[in-house]
């Protein structure tokens, strides 16, 4: 890392060392890894508080910053959901709750959770922290751009939060922001609220593009020696593919945001047909609201997988580590991630079966959507087949993974209902949809996030989280969340439409009263249970058990940093050299039940390892 770094010399030194480091009587060629193609990265080390912790260029710090900001918005989203459930379960109990407020909370809850919480957390948080560590890089390839990316996100969150305080309040047009209602009177926050939302989204996209370029180029061009794509942990695969999706899907969101802003501010008619409001014909004319829906869902469907794919990847790693067994069918898993990602650009209009689009699209989109079910199902099989004949540690991390499998399979199956065009017709726009997407892209990824927090906290903080509290946290969250969303499907069967502020004056909906009260109570408990985690983190930071190096006995590179927690530059003087995939657990003939990626073949001649 010194200024006049003589690259060739170091490479030779490194490679000769690895060659001679082999066991006795082994041919030196066995451990050979190609010399480095790229000289070691120069890093800017912060020396003041501001450059170290605020405007920091270390991907790990940026990752934590992303994480904390996302969690902050997530808590706001959680509080909003409480307020909504209060209204639905016990209407009139909260005196201030008007329909306007209710719809504003619905909208902000949705947008915050999908974009500012889950996307930012998985890609910005876990992506930044884990990608360089897992591929064996010193940092992201463009640390400065990475820093700007976070601060863009920070500003985007600020603008979003500001919309709570402008006249008219935040937008209440539903998280899909469908025009024409999004920018017309009659929808709450159709003035400043929607404008700030659109500006915030545009900033988010710009900021995210900066971060996304970093993640992609780091994975593609800055892996360490011996780290092939097929030796990357699935976590990296998931985040990488999700980032690809984001880079290609966010443009559609940006474009639709820009066009709607112009419709609002300049009075153009991209999405606005001739409209009669309060007896007067507005100045608009000739636009197409369905065009917005197409653009939105061209972004929106990949967005679902932007949230889901990192979760898939991370959970694969967690399951493998904690059942002490290699992930079953690694290649299949990788191809499934890539395939799901690619297909996700061809299925967007399954959100629009009853939107009044060209009805013949139904055939196309139902087919492509159900095709996507195949690779997804394969992933599920491979997770449970990884458990099969494993040596499962039933610790908190594993519990979250099991919880993920149950909720994800449940939500995935209901996805087949909604993806199959005819089945969707009676169920769309009802509570069935709400139950489905909360189960599959709310609760399931949340389970993974929690599992990941318990798994990697020892790395980030150097101390273990409390297991007892963790189990309480898990069971309250899992059982609570399941009892919120599982019965909710049946409200959808009855035909209760979503986004209803009140619903009790219809004869067949009165039966929903009891269930709504129950769901609301469960929601309060689940929400409150999340504060156990916060308490756990604070407590463990102070007095948690010291983690030491590699407490889980995992194989992947992030546990083999020079210090725990890793310092800037991650790996000390020399980058690790990778010889195997990260899933060599319980290899027959080996002494330990794990075998780090850096183990050279000469050290394990007698074992039957996978030749990757």
């Amino acid at each position, binding site marked *: 890392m010194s200024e006049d770094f003589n690259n060739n010399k170091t*490479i030779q030194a490194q490679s000769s060392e690895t060659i001679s480091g082999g066991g006795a009587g082994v041919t030196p060629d066995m451990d050979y890894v190609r010399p480095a193609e790229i000289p070691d990265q120069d890093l800017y080390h912060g020396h003041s508080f501001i450059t170290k912790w605020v405007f920091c260029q270390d991907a790990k710090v940026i990752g934590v910053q992303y994480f904390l900001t996302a969690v902050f918005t997530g808590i706001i989203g959680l509080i909003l959901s409480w307020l909504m459930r209060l209204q639905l379960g016990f209407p009139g109990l909260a005196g201030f709750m008007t329909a306007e407020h209710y719809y504003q909370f619905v909208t902000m809850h949705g947008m915050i959770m999908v974009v500012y919480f889950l996307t930012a957390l998985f890609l910005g948080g876990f992506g930044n922290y884990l990608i360089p560590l897992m591929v064996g890089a010193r940092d992201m*390839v463009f640390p400065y751009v990475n820093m700007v990316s976070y601060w863009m996100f920070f500003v985007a969150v600020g603008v979003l939060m500001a919309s709570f305080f402008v006249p008219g309040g935040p937008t209440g047009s539903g998280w899909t922001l469908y025009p024409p209602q999004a920018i017309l009177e009659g929808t709450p926050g159709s003035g400043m609220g929607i404008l700030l939302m659109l500006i915030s989204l545009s900033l988010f996209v710009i900021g995210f593009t900066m971060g996304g370029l970093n993640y992609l180029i780091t994975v593609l061009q800055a892996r360490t020696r011996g780290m092939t794509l097929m030796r990357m942990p699935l976590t990296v695969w998931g985040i990488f593919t999700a980032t690809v999706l984001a880079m290609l899907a966010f443009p559609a969101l940006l474009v639709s945001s820009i066009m709607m802003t112009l419709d609002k501010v300049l009075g153009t008619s991209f999405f606005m047909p001739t409209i009669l409001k309060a007896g007067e014909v507005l100045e608009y004319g000739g636009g197409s609201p369905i065009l917005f829906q197409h653009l939105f869902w061209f972004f929106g469907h990949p967005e679902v997988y932007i949230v889901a794919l990192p979760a898939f990847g991370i959970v694969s790693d967690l399951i493998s580590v904690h059942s002490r067994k290699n992930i079953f069918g690694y290649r299949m898993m990788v191809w499934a991630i890539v395939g799901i990602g690619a297909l996700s650009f061809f299925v967007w209009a399954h959100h629009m079966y009853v939107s009044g689009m060209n009805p013949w699209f139904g055939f196309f989109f139902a087919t492509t959507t159900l095709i996507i079910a195949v690779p997804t199902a394969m992933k599920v099989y491979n997770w449970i087949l990884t458990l099969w004949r494993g040596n499962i540690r039933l610790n908190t991390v594993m519990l979250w993974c099991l919880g993920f499998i149950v909720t994800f399979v449940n939500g995935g199956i209901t996805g087949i209902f909604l993806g199959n065009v005819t089945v969707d017709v009676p169920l769309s726009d009802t509570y069935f949809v709400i139950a489905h997407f909360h189960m599959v892209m709310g609760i399931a990824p949340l389970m993974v996030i929690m599992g990941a927090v318990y798994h990697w906290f020892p790395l980030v903080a150097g101390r273990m989280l409390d297991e007892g509290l963790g189990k309480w946290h898990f069971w309250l969250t899992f059982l609570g969340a399941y009892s919120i969303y599982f019965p909710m499907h049946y409200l959808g069967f009855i035909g209760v439409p979503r986004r209803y502020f009140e619903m009790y004056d219809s004869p067949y909906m009165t039966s929903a009263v009891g269930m709504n009260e129950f769901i609301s109570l469960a929601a309060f408990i689940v929400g409150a249970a999340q504060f156990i985690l916060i308490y756990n983190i604070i407590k463990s930071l102070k007095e948690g058990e010291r983690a030491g190096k590699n407490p889980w006995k995992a194989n992947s590179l992030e546990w083999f940093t020079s210090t725990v927690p890793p310092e800037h530059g991650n790996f000390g003087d020399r980058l690790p050299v990778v010889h195997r995939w990260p899933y060599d657990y319980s290899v027959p003939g080996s002494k330990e039940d794990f075998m780090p990626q850096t183990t050279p073949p000469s050290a394990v001649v007698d074992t039957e390892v996978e030749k990757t």
Partner: protein
Amino acid sequence: MSEQKIVDYEFKPGFKGMAKDTGSDQTMFKGVHWGKAMMWIFLLSDTFVFSCFLISYMKGRASTPVEWPNPSEVFALDAFGVPVPLLLIAIMTFVLITSSGTMALAVKYGYERNRKMCGWLVLATAIGGLTFVGMQAFEWSKLIHEGVRPWENPFGAPQFGSFFFMITGFHGTHVSIGVIFLFIYAYKVFAGHYDEQKRGWFTTMKGDYVEIEILGLYWHFVDLVWVFIFAFFYLW
């Protein structure tokens, strides 16, 4: 970084090479500078932005029952008293392609480490870009003068003005950003930052003529987008 030799790696051509590159360690794009790879991926993303704009334009134009103005007439310019269709647009296209050519040559001379030639050509590109932006400003003011607004126009469908100002505006913004960077890079070339491997102002990355190629990619992309706008908006 671009100077780096890739040791002990056999380059294979075609799809076999692609499979081998993809399956190899360290990098997937062999010998491609980080910045260049980033610019390519960014341009891919930007392609989606412009595609979405143009697709919206197509959908909007296809579904309006109101007559779409004839661009050939709207964008005609009087030359010596005779209206010539798309005259200004033709000149703008000419200017942009000229600047694209000078940029391509700048990249070439950059790699030959020919500081003077590279610098002058980058500067020429910048001036070409500036001319383009100037002519676009002229075109906008002419149309606004004729009563074309983003929300209405005297020739037909109101979406005509909306899409025109939005798409050319977005493209013009790209050109303007490009021009600013071209001037900065021209300065950096003349000042010898790339010969001395001087580090960037904000980053720790060492200066290299590959940055001229990266900028060139962006500039050619702007030209590329114009090719599509020219075809779809002015000729269609």
